[in-house]
């Protein structure tokens, strides 16, 4: 039962990744692109944890944590750049 639920969640988050990519490619504003990138990172975290669940290892939690931190920092850097023109003033 868990195996099929994991497959279902894989399919959902995979489709979500594709939709985010489509939004990044076809968006009309840079803010929505940054938002789509941030969503892409969050969906990647979910996929990593699902993969760890599927093959029964815990080694991916550290990777997910690092991706979460890097995603947040990069989104904030993008937002600073869009707002002020530079990142560290």
């Amino acid at each position, binding site marked *: *039962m*868990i195996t*099929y*639920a*994991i497959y*279902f*969640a*894989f*399919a*959902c*988050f995979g*489709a*979500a*990744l594709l*939709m*985010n990519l*489509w*939004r990044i490619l076809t968006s009309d*504003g840079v*803010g*929505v692109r*940054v*938002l*789509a990138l*941030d*969503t892409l990172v*969050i*969906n990647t*975290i*979910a996929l990593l*944890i*699902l993969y*760890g*669940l599927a093959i*029964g290892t*815990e080694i991916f*939690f*550290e990777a*997910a*944590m690092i991706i*979460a*931190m890097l995603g*947040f920092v990069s*989104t*904030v850097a993008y*937002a*600073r750049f*869009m*707002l002020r023109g530079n990142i560290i003033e």
Partner: protein
Amino acid sequence: MTAIAEPLIAFFLIVSGIFGFVGSFGLLKLGDPMSRMHAPTKATTLGVGGVLLASILHSVAIEKHLSLHELLITLFLFLTAPITAHFIAKWHIHRHETPQSLPRAGDDVIWATHDTPEQEDGDAA
């Protein structure tokens, strides 16, 4: 224990998959940038929270040992998603709106985010 835990884990996984899908579908479907911000910052965070909850349950009930790494990730995501949304909303206010085009600011004349930079510039000049 496992008889109760397995359907619960499957339930959390399916619900989180649906939430993750809805979050990105909203990003694609909704019209203007501020509506688009609404879907991924809420639904996707909830979706990842569901996956992490399922992972905690899996490690407790099936692998028989408590692991709380997931709580760290959940906490981090729930802290950072509003900050991200705030930054992008602020970008939109400053780039695509004027103080006149925004809704009324309650008791104040304009919103605080439009208020401070001009004053600092005036002092510097």
